[in-house]
């Protein structure tokens, strides 16, 4: 039985499909986790509110789409409006992130890390509850996906795509493209701009960076704001994916894989986050295929992600690209 399933798995069509789905999951994971890793890498702040702000991004992105897309809006129009939504949500969440950092995170920098963990965890509860209240005011169900937002997805992204013998979803191809764009944009920002240089220097040694004249507190604000903006942009993309969708539970659903990716990659390293996203995405995709075709146990693929985490922590506790100590203030 297992040999027959293995033979099926190793066919070009199945392996190709698993590969493309794995890349799509990797793209989503890298978008969800990169804000978290940037914030921890520089500031040493484990932002437990990251998932909740991703969920807010999903609802805001959905709101822009629901308000602007009509039945007659075609493929190009919907894709164009989607990119407008991503830019608007990124901008709004970046401003919100800046406000959160300056008003409630900054006063806690000189306190032990547990204060920031408790604060961001508390922020999660507040954000989730506020979203529930707002949804309640409009008669929307907080626990199930926002169908009106899902319905703004172009018809093409609901259909399968044939890449030679490999059958995949167009949405997966779209997610891969957005993931590649996101990684390229963050990479260029970190390595080609002066601010990116300050962020990388500050991530290694905030005291030394300050002594070179870099206003590290200002860099903290910018990084926190951009990290939250990225969370919002990721949420907008997830809003179109039926596996995720805009709902209040999206907060927890995204926070767990984001933490797994960030820890496996090495806390605070963007390169590690990209590689770990690939490892976790591919594992997820492969295990999903196996547990759909060999053993029927739908919850097991998610458990396998934790297995990746446990194995990493045993073999290389600092993560794939981690250093012993990062971040701080």
């Amino acid at each position, binding site marked *: 039985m297992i040999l027959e399933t293995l033979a099926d798995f190793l066919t070009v069509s199945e392996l190709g499909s698993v590969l493309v789905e794995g890349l799509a999951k990797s793209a989503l994971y890298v978008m969800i986790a990169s804000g978290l890793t940037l914030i921890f890498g520089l500031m040493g702040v484990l932002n437990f509110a990251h998932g909740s702000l991703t969920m807010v991004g999903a609802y805001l992105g959905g709101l822009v789409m629901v308000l602007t897309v009509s039945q007659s809006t075609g493929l190009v129009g919907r894709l164009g409006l989607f990119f407008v939504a991503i830019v608007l949500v990124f901008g709004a969440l970046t401003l919100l992130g800046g406000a959160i950092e300056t008003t409630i995170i900054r006063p806690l920098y000189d306190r032990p890390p547990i204060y920031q963990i408790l604060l961001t965890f508390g922020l999660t509860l507040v954000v989730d509850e506020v979203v529930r209240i707002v949804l309640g005011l409009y008669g929307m169900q907080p626990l199930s996906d926002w169908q009106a937002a899902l319905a703004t997805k172009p018809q093409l992204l609901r259909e399968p795509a044939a890449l030679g013998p490999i059958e995949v979803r167009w949405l997966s191809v779209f997610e891969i493209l957005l993931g590649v764009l996101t990684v390229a944009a963050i990479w260029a920002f970190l390595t080609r701009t002066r601010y990116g*240089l300050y962020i990388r220097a500050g991530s290694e*040694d905030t005291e*030394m960076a300050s*002594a070179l*004249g*870099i206003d590290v507190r200002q860099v903290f604000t910018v990084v926190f704001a951009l990290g939250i903006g990225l969370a919002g942009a990721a949420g907008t993309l997830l809003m179109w994916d039926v596996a995720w969708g805009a709902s209040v539970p999206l907060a927890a659903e995204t926070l767990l894989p984001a933490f797994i990716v960030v820890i496996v990659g090495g806390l605070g390293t963007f390169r590690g986050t990209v590689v770990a996203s690939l490892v976790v995405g591919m594992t997820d995709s492969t295990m999903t295929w196996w547990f759909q075709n060999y053993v029927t146990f739908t919850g097991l693929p998610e458990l396998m992600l934790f297995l990746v985490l446990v194995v990493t922590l045993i073999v290389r506790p600092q993560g794939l690209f981690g250093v012993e100590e990062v971040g701080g203030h």
Partner: protein
Amino acid sequence: MSLLELDGVHAYYGDSHILEGVDLSVEDGEVVALVGRNGVGKTTTLRSILQLTPPREGEIRFREASLVGLETHEVAQQGVGWIPEDRRIFSQLTVEENLRAAIPGSDGVSDGLALAFDSFPILEERRRQEAGTLSGGQQQMLAIARGLVGENDLLLVDEPSEGLAPQIVADVAEALSEASEDATMLLVEQNLPLALDLADRFYIVDNGRVVDTGDADAVSADDERFRRYLSA
């Protein structure tokens, strides 16, 4: 008026009283050495100037303006550079990126890099290499170059010869000697002959305060005062 003046500076780590009223001054163009045994407060003096360990009492003036209460980056922006103990280069950045991080603004990048590479040609050969992969001596050269390119009026140099092989110490001494022709320095150095060779004046620090001072040219390393305060 002195470039830098410390007047009755007291600093603490938690409840530990480290500096117990440090008084010293550095004139424009001088190299001043702070010498003393381990743990007497030399490094803390430099950290207090940078406001990394802010003083609880006393005054620190740079070009007659108080530094007390400023943020560290504001002190640095006034022209105070730091070449720290243990180098503290950014190990995951390339050599060139380490230098760029120290150059204020983008206008002076090419001049800054040229200055660093003129002083330390090996750094130009390794400019694309991750700084963490350099040898200890090369990392020290990078730390010094990073201090030089910052357009600083005053350099705080902490134990530049610590942990280096004798030949590398000679190279570092030569680089600091060349740098001292254009820069004012406050130098902390355990290697007394090296400190006296580079410095115009010295202060002896003991138990968190200055206990003696003099002209470096007028003493030798086996002076009785150094034996009294520097011997273990």
